[in-house]
């Protein structure tokens, strides 16, 4: 992700630390590797570019957006993590993965020196959600796995739905012409 202070921050950062972005969904703070995020946009700025996915193939995905000739599926962070529904104001567009994530706010960036493994006691979906945990300023914060938002199966279903939307638009365009 490009931010103004990146270069100076990078020079201060030792090789053993990792830059993360802390973001909030509801009252919960999460972390994601800064390298995994391509850009952060407001939901308002993407509203005109977003295409509604009416068929709800994957309930947590209601929209897709085209960015740099790629289709990104917009995942509701609340629905993904089973949190109380909020009104997200930002979209994290991920790098290398065709996923964008609706979040409420960005808290800040931080350099972390260690990501602790998720304890083996956690055996549910969270093993796919989180890379591990960080302990930062007396808080334990889960670190997101960027590829954990959508499964290959979910991508395939969404791709089919996106193609259907595209075909319908082409057909509507032909009829109008």
């Amino acid at each position, binding site marked *: 992700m490009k931010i103004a202070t990146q270069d100076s921050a990078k020079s201060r950062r030792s090789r053993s630390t990792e830059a993360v972005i802390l973001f909030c969904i509801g009252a919960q703070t999460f972390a994601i590797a800064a390298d995994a995020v391509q850009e952060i946009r407001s939901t308002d700025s993407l509203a005109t570019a977003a295409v509604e996915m009416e068929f709800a193939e994957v309930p947590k995905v209601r929209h897709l957006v085209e960015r740099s000739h790629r289709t990104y599926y917009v995942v509701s962070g609340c629905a993904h993590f089973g949190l109380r529904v909020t009104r997200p104001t930002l979209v994290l567009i991920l790098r290398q993965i065709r996923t964008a994530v609706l979040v409420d706010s960005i808290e800040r960036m931080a350099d972390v020196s260690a990501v602790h493994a998720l*304890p*083996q*006691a956690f*055996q549910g979906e969270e093993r796919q959600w989180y890379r591990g945990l960080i302990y930062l300023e007396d808080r334990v914060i889960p670190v997101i796995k960027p590829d*954990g938002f959508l499964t290959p199966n979910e991508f395939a279903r969404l791709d089919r739905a996106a193609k259907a939307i595209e075909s319908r638009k082409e057909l509507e365009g032909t009829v109008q012409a």
Partner: protein
Amino acid sequence: MSGPENHARKSWVLLHVGNRRFALPAESVMELAPPVRLHNFPHTSRLIAGVIVRRGRIVPVYDVCPVLCGRESSVHRFYLIAERAFGAGNEASEASAIPVNGECELASGEMLPPQENAPPYFAGTLAIENANIDVLDLQKLVSAEINNPTAANHAELRP
């Protein structure tokens, strides 16, 4: 925890969960931790109340009171930290915390077989101070619920 025969005439830590006393083998107990902040984050694993941080380690906290006593308990402020083994052997274990009320004591005695129809997470009983105290098998206690197929049955494998 290994078989009951290995725990005969050993030391035990007696702990209070709800209004009942239970025992854990003393060699599996690491420490009684003071009230510290319980951290939580979204997950789908049953029985896990969150995690605490002790001596630089992140320790999962199992809320076993509903299983052992059939109800929630609000009086637990301390954490008894014990090793929980994973798998059949003891090749992998993890520090695990149980909320307790802080009244723990060391006792020695001979473990007797569990009572008939006792749940599988009771490894046996101790006769101490005219009372029968159930000995907990921590691994079975927490995995009985965690391995329940309904716990994460809607999880899909992700790459």
